[in-house]
């Protein structure tokens, strides 16, 4: 059993490792090899017995949690995004494959020949040196025009071996294919340039490895790689750029560059307001209902509880989309009713204020059952003797609530409320599926909407229609990481759960 497991997983691991080796994926390869070594140690060594249980989870945890987080931090320091997608090597090879037509380049008259399979060969005669060349694949070879394979009829060359000469009409019919033909010639290329001739093209750029510069051979300008773009001394930039580390530029831009920081600050403050109001509203409603239901004299209270948790049980994405239909400004049921009774028509998704109201309303619907459930649980854990004692001391029901119930509830519910704040802080699904972050902020350079929260804004930066800004998106998600981390730390302080937990280890 042991041997078989080991054999199979080693074989699979090695196979994957070979793939990664070819792909030069060092990061993942390291994780994989660490995993494989771990597996072998775990199964072969007695001392490492616990590893047999831990390893499967550890591998996934390393690959899908630790690695992405590190990778994300890495990207946040890069200019990765539209315009800077490719690696430096790819960009250099793209530039060094660009050609230009020098003013005094060598010109050729040409004849094109085609065989039955449709393969083409080109016969070129230089207009300056009068030398003749015949194409062989991507190359040109000098040819003797009196060679036996060349067949003449009436003084005109009509055939080379199996290849028949094409007429001008045929050439024009196949122009696209012919324009793609390129042949190496000295340090340049020979290409079709007009219906009457082929011409020599020269490479436009030369990459000097030692100096790490790109030289424009036409203008002799020198371009240095600066922040992922080849830039000349007078500031001219070559497009595309490549992926490169840009230090804290993304973070600085988010905070200081007005085009980016303007919408960011709006999104940032709305995210806090949104999370705070969502928690307050759902908790207020949930707690009120819990108090009403926590009444032994109420008949059918379990039935009511079951009915009230319905919003919690319908998958969120479905109920959010239903609400989107019901709130539709022109056709929705809600505006229909409002129009009939109050002759109002509310622009739910067109006006920033009403879009926010709609979001909070729908999130209240989604979230109150959870708050009701946890409040009910907490209420039931308060010892009834306390109320008895308070009643004997003559405390009224309101006084009992704020001096006994509420403080005791807060002790057990505070961490859950903070957790709910953190959850709503990143509640992408509601925002994205209900309003999509819209309506857009007028005049914003980035795809920010009035109801976007940080995570939906990040999502749009990376995967929205306006290009893929992976670098900025990763940087913002690092900022969210820190905010959430702070919230969790506060949460732990509140509950001293960390201390408790580390005592129990």
């Amino acid at each position: 059993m042991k041997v078989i497991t080991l054999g199979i997983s080693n074989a699979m691991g090695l196979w994957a490792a070979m793939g990664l080796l070819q792909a030069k994926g060092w990061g993942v390869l390291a994780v994989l090899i660490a995993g494989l070594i771990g597996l072998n140690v775990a199964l072969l060594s007695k001392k490492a017995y616990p590893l047999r249980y831990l390893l499967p989870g550890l591998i996934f945890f390393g690959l899908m949690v630790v690695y992405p987080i590190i990778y994300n931090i890495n990207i946040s320091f890069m200019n990765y995004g539209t315009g800077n997608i490719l690696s430096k090597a790819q960009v250099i090879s793209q530039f060094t494959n660009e050609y230009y037509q020098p003013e005094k380049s060598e010109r050729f008259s040409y004849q094109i020949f085609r065989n039955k399979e449709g393969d083409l060969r080109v016969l070129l005669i230089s207009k300056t040196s009068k030398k003749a060349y015949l194409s062989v694949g991507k190359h040109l070879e000098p040819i003797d025009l009196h060679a036996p394979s060349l067949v003449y009829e009436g003084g005109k060359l009509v055939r080379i071996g199996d290849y028949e000469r094409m007429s001008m009409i045929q050439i024009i019919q196949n122009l696209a294919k012919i324009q793609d033909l390129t042949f190496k010639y000295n340090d340049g290329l020979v290409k079709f340039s007009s219906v009457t001739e082929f011409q020599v093209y020269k490479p436009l750029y030369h990459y000097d490895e030692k100096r790490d510069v790109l030289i424009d051979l036409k203008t002799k300008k020198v371009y240095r790689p600066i922040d992922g773009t080849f830039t000349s001394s007078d500031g001219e930039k070559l497009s595309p750029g490549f992926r490169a580390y840009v230090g804290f530029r993304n973070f600085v831009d988010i905070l200081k560059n007005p085009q980016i920081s303007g919408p960011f600050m709006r999104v940032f403050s709305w995210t806090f307001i949104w999370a705070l109001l969502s928690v307050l509203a759902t908790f207020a409603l949930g707690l009120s209902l819990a108090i009403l239901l926590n009444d032994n004299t109420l008949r059918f209270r379990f039935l009511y509880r079951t009915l009230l948790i319905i919003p919690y049980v319908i998958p969120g994405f479905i109920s959010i989309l239903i609400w989107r239909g019901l709130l539709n400004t022109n056709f929705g049921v809600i505006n229909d009713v409002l129009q009939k009774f109050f002759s109002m028509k509310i622009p739910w998704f067109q006006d920033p204020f009403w879009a926010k109201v709609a979001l909070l309303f729908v999130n209240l619907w989604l979230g109150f059952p959870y708050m009701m459930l946890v409040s009910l649980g907490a209420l039931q854990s308060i010892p009834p003797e306390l109320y008895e004692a308070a009643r004997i001391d003559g405390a009224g029901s309101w006084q009992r609530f704020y001096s006994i119930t509420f403080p005791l509830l807060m002790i057990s519910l505070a961490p859950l409320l903070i957790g709910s704040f953190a959850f709503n802080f990143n509640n992408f699904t509601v925002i994205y599926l209900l309003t999509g972050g819209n309506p857009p902020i007028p005049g914003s350079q980035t795809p920010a909407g009035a109801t976007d929260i940080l995570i939906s804004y990040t999502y749009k930066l990376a995967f929205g229609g306006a290009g893929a800004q992976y670098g900025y998106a990763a940087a913002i998600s690092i900022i969210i990481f820190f905010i959430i981390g702070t919230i969790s730390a506060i949460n732990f302080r509140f509950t001293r759960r960390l201390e408790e937990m580390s005592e129990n280890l």
Partner: protein
Amino acid sequence: MHNKVRILKRIIQYAVIFTAIAFAFFPVIWIVSASINPGGTLYGQKLIPEKSTLEHYKMLFTDKRYPFMLWLWNSLKVSVIASSITVFLCALASYAFSRFHFRGRRAGLLTLLLIQMFPVMLAFVALYLLLLWIGKYFPFMGLNTHPGLILVYLGGALGFNTWLMKGYFDTIPHDLEEAALIDGATRFQAFVRIILPLARPILTVIFILTFIGDYSEYLLASIILTGSKKYTLAVGLNLFITSDYARHWGTFAAASIVGSLPVLIIFFSLQKQIISGLTGGGVKG
């Protein structure tokens, strides 16, 4: 006098509860009504349709452009597989953390806890690029594949659930396994035959909460799945709605109801266990 106050209180109590129930059921009632309303458009919908039809439900099976049933199947497949593997991996890891004493145990648990504070979903750009890259060499688990999505879901679920399960394992007395070990069982046999059956409540809760979370997940599914045939229901329905909302309201309504059923059924059949799991600290994902 005292009696009057009590009656008034009762009336307010009922009024609030029933208003809340009406609020909770408001969209449900409208969507059920829309799903059997022959008209099928969003505009001019009536709460109680004059005639009823099952046409919209039939559309779910026959619509060629929007393969709802395939999407539903994809969702179920991805979430069942992801949550099964999650439970399996977590059970193994938490058993080790709960029963064995080894170097790095404390550090391992704390690391797990600290890293889990940062929702891995936030690193979605990195996850996307990671899968893009994996897909180049192992196409069956790259972008636009279900194994790729499952892989991503697994990552997000391990830390917190391992903690939850370890807590439960700690409460199971050691004597039972020790007796089994004396009787000649191996450690692994003791784990499988004794601990796992005893831990069934927590295994169920984690399975179901993970299932519901993955089933409803939109963000990661929407960036990883790019082809209509691979969509989960969440991604598919959103696409359907943005393109054909007002006209196909009836079909959407039917799809919503069918799509809610798996979670509704699971939830209400295991309500007690799930609610106890929730109040233990999870927030719906």
